[in-house]
């Protein structure tokens, strides 16, 4: 299934957001997620189904002003 992860095309076999994060090697990383511009809480990643064309954002803490 073709989706977009952080702005780049990605081919995945994962069917949920949690599965995608495992596939990408995020493990226990300190990250937050959104799918199709909507926030998905960590507790809801297992239930968040992925569909072709979905846009997934994965972010982490960074420097800011």
């Amino acid at each position: 299934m073709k989706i977009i992860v952080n702005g780049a095309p990605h081919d995945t076999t994962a069917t949920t957001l949690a599965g995608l994060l495992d596939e990408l090697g995020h493990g226990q990383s300190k990250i937050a997620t959104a799918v199709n511009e909507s926030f998905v809480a960590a507790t809801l990643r297992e239930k968040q189904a992925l569909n072709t064309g979905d846009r997934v954002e994965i972010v982490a803490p960074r420097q800011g002003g």
Partner: protein
Amino acid sequence: MPVFYDTKIASRLMLGTAQYPSPAILAEAFKRSGAGIATVSVRREAGGERAGQDFWDLIADLGVKVLPNTAGCHSVREAVTTAQMARELFDTPWIKLEVIGHADTLQPDPFGLVEAARILTEDEFQVFPYCTEDLVLCDRLIEAGCRVLMPWGAPIGTGLGLNNVYGLRSLRAHFPDVPLVVDAGLGLPSQAAQAMELGYDAVLLNTAVAKAGDPAAMAEGFARALEAGRLAFEADPMEPRDMAAPSTPILGKAFLA
């Protein structure tokens, strides 16, 4: 000392964490200045990357309050989603809300800002809005639930100081009980002292420190200026006047003409 959403902060300096030459210099700037709040952001991370965790470990070691931002967001939806991700990442209801309205000046979009502030306040965020010194906008932000206002001094990263002293003074007069922070545009400690002399509660800056030749020394310079400016405000400064007035007594002067 300032109180933001019932949390007392032991410093009037809020310091950004971007653009430092190294993590060690960032930490030294916080240490020497005693800054009480660090602003942070969220950005994309690839699998296996540890940048986020490493940065978080550095910030956690500073022992300061963390204020995540929505920097770079140009729409209400983008800002709201970013705020929600930041709340989960940093485990805080505080959010420095930026809804940018113009790419050149990076000035806030006042209409989007009020809408986003209302949405986030209803979702139990504690919003620190990056705004202009426009009185009507600030009224709307208070109505939307903001209990802090953060007007710019000048456009982000310019170092121009307080571009509209009248407007900032007017805000202080109209909102005597709302914590006011000059956010953005400061380049020198004297400008921070001026904000304090106007009765502002704190300043938020990043570039002026991070891009100085010696960031830690500049951070300390800002901290001292804030202390001096606040002391001056509390000391009730004299009124300026147009005509000269001798400070040395005339009475008793020897007649030598």
